């Protein structure tokens, strides 16, 4: 059970060096922001899995699909702030909850997962139930259960145990109940009065812990972070900094970074990826899974393990491959057992960086052919944060349908689009970039010709000329839009929303820090996680009927504080 596994000895953590907080060290102060109204974010499917696995162990299976989130402002993390649980979506959560609870009390698991054993397993045992729900509830809800919540859980467990003559059935039913409440399914921004803030509110310590933990580890807070919330340490700069440094140094950071890039690069598309295997015999479902894994392994190793500059993910020749990818890249693989091994493309190879990997190249292609337009659009929108307008609805495609036209390559076909005014606006944004990757087919296999014609891959990225995919990758590396885009999206991902108007200066401040750090992603994460802006909340919004629309002010806390 990871509840205990995640307890990391404080002694293992070196004294937090002030120098790591680069922005403070440089003397640049953080621009003041007023934040946004408190919100509630639905757990992503990956967060759900992580929390369950952290609490109950990796062996707990979660087989069902979750309702998808809506990608908003370029991120599912933002869509999570608007997500609604539909009836069929709730049905899925309920069935998954039943399955998780059943596994948790399974004979093989109960000794490990339930912290006590009743003297008589045929009867209710209030003390043991209470102990279980105290420990588990604190991790699932990311805060202690209220006394009322505890009573509900314990009473349910006791009653079921008595009815079915089985203590563990009681635990199972009570746990199922916990797992379908909003307090588990949503990350709720609970607030409390704070006279020092602009809004008079601040996030509770537990809400801060959740923000931190889901950003850095993509899971619920561990014991140490919850303890920091409970002692009030997360309301102090020093307390936040200690926790952030601990978490950034943790191996779980890789999981958080992975989750961000899955969202940022829209890798969920892999779920629907399909290729024609008669056209691409090297493609299998396993190959697609490997392609996604390669992208993430490359990125995590580069940005977390090596702490190397972010823009170099576009130029690094270092990656990892397995036997599936070896077929696509036509390189020998030492481990035919399907295992991963480090690999470095030779200096004179056509590939360098994640954009020349199968993952990107196949994801933004059609099932039976490459697509310069889709690839170019992905680069613009995902990596440069530039919106490509939707295509107009009234195009006359007869201009491109001349059966006698000598169109053999993608460049031939797309030239027509670039010469028609209604098409050119968008295609000039996408195609010059995408055509740079045309030496890679619809699954990323290298080729020099299409239908017998030599493929021309020269082009330019916003005025920077490139001769091939590798020099395009270098142009991406050099583009100032690349780190700016990442900064904006990482902050949006952290906050669960696009930056507010008064946060633009703060985002620029983050960009400066990112630059000063040599584009260290870990440094950027530290800067966000230790910033005031990350935790700032404004007053809840109200709608016409006077009902507060999105927020959470804890009246109980207010009473306790005597406000």
């Amino acid at each position, binding site marked *: 059970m990871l509840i205990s596994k995640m307890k990391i000895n404080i002694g293992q953590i070196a004294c937090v060096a002030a120098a790591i907080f680069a922005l403070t060290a440089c003397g640049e102060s953080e621009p003041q922001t007023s934040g946004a109204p*408190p919100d*509630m974010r639905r757990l992503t499917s990956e967060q759900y899995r992580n929390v369950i696995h952290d609490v109950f162990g990796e062996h707990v299976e979660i087989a069902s699909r979750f*309702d*998808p989130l*809506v990608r908003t402002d370029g991120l599912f993390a933002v869509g999570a702030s*608007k*997500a*609604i*649980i*539909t*009836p*069929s*979506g*709730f*049905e899925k959560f*309920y069935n998954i909850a039943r399955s998780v609870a059943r596994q948790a009390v399974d004979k093989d698991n109960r000794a490990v997962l339930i912290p006590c054993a009743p003297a008589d397993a045929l009867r209710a045992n209030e003390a043991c139930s209470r102990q279980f729900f105290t420990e588990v509830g604190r991790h699932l809800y990311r805060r202690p259960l*209220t006394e*009322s*919540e505890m*009573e*509900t859980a314990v*009473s*349910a467990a006791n*009653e*079921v145990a008595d*009815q*079915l003559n089985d203590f563990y059935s009681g635990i199972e*039913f009570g746990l*199922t*109940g916990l797992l*379908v*409440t*909003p*307090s588990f399914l949503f990350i709720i921004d*609970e607030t409390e009065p704070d006279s020092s803030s602009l809004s008079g509110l601040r996030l509770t310590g537990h809400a801060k812990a959740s923000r931190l933990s889901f950003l850095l580890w993509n899971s619920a807070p561990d014991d140490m972070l919850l303890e920091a919330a409970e002692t009030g340490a997360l309301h102090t700069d020093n307390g936040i900094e200690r926790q952030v440094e601990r978490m950034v140094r943790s191996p779980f950071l890789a999981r958080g970074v992975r989750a961000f890039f899955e969202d940022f690069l829209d890798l969920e598309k892999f779920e*629907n990826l*399909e290729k*024609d*295997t*008669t*056209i691409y015999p090297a493609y299998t479902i396993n190959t697609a899974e490997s392609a996604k894994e390669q992208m993430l392994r490359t990125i995590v190793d580069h940005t977390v393990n090596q702490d190397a500059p972010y823009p170099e993910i576009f130029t690094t020749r270092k990656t990892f491959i397995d036997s599936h990818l070896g077929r696509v890249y036509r390189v020998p693989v030492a481990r035919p057992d399907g295992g991963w091994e480090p690999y470095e493309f030779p200096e004179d190879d056509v590939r360098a960086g994640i954009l020349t990997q199968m993952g990107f190249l196949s994801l933004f292609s*059609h*099932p*039976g052919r490459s697509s310069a337009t889709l690839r170019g659009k992905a680069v613009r929108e995902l990596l440069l944060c530039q919106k490509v307008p*939707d*295509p*107009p*609805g*009234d*195009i*006359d495609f007869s201009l491109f*349908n001349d059966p006698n036209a000598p169109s053999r390559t993608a460049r031939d076909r797309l030239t027509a689009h670039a010469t028609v005014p209604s098409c050119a606006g968008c295609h000039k944004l996408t195609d010059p970039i995408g055509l740079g990757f045309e030496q890679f087919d619809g699954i990323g296999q290298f080729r020099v010709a299409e239908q017998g014609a030599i493929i021309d891959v020269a082009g330019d990225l916003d005025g920077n000329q490139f001769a091939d995919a590798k020099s395009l990758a270098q142009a991406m590396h050099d583009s100032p839009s690349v780190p700016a885009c990442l900064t904006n999206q990482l902050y949006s991902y952290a906050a669960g929303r696009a930056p507010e108007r008064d946060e633009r200066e703060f985002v620029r401040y983050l960009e400066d820090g990112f630059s000063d750090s040599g584009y260290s992603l870990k440094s950027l994460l530290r800067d966000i996680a230790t910033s005031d802006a990350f935790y700032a909340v404004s007053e*809840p919004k109200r709608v016409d009927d006077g009902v*507060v*629309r999105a*927020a*959470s*002010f*804890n*009246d109980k806390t207010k009473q306790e504080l005597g406000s």
Partner: protein
Amino acid sequence: MSFFLHSKKSRRQMLRSMMGGGVVSLTLPFLDCFLNTNGTALASGAPIPTRFGTWYWGMGQTPGRAVKDKVATGPGIEFLEETESLIPHKDKLNYFGKFNMPLDGRSNYTHFSGWVANRTGTAPEAGGNIPAPTLDLLIADEIGKGTRFRTLDVSSVGMARQNYSARNTFNRAAAEIDPVALFDRIYGPEFADPNKADFKPDPDVRMRKSVLSAFTEETKDYMKSLGAVDKQRMDQYFTSIREIENQLALQLTKPEPNLACVVPTRPGELGPDEVVRVREIDSVIETHKVMTKILAMAVACNQTNVFNMVFTDSFANVRRVGETYTHHLLTHEEAIDADRGYQPLTYSFNKASMDGMASFIDIIDSIPEGDGTLLDNCLIFASSETNYARLHTIDGVPVYLIGGAGGRMKQGMYVAGGGDPITRVGLTAMQIMGVPVQNWGTKSLETSKTISEIVV
């Protein structure tokens, strides 16, 4: 004895609906002996419910090859080669031609605005924006209560997100895309076979329902203490819980015998080395048949009154083995054959869609119910998002209303729109289904004109 007897919680929070309370009545079954003499109602006087469904295909139709245009509304639809498979069903459906879809200056977001405006009555403000509930959900609010599932959403094209049923942008259920998962969801352990002689309520179910209710009450109290959570989102959460509570309540009630209900065979699971080309058109056609059989019997078995089936998605990501172009790409990039006057490969996909619709009707119509078939008691709204996909035209988008709607709809009619807003079809469908709506749609799509020619 009540749960939580020793609890300090208020009685209100004590499992109100358990232990003999709160029995939810099933909609009645359709065994002949329970029917009245003309087979249209049960002996008790309760009518056979009329069910509503939608059927969706992407990319519209081939101009001049689908249905012959007429200038006036009247009996008789002239099916052309693309729709010839519908001829056997010509007296069981209506076709709506020459209706318009005005967007009032809003962009035509390609392969999106068409279905949104058609199904919600409002043009979207942006790509991805769903500004109002789709008509199936408005109808489900009226007739979807009292069955196990408020709606069942199914897609044969393997894309869960591509379900054209939503309350708004962020409240859109995912479609079931796996035949085995669909089967298990409907006919798994929670399914009560109405024709089984013995029925013994599972005590676990009663307790599950009670526990869920207790946590729901607790949650309501907690959310009140927060004072300010997103009300609309929480309301939907509690609505969703009620659906599950309803499902559990139904499991505690013996369903009445229903001869129409015959549990279908569970689809075979794939072997470890088997691969289904999910979006290869022949595979889509096969999956569609399998899933339709499962779905249709779920309707006959009274598991839902509202269903949505997606044959192909609005971007028609379907293809043929070995072809580099998908259906969607073909609509834009395939040249018009000079001799035939149309895009032949695109046409073949369009025809496959109509063949798919015919097979859907076949399956629904093959299930006996009362003195007719299940189709007689269904109203199915079948539509696409475009008329001529090559040019993204949305005026003249093809719409069919299929089935007898429990005797409430005339069939076999060609309805000439004369440029009226397409929302007249949706409005009429909702009115036939008993939704108390006088007018529907916004701006130029707003209409109060029922298509009286098809209403009985």
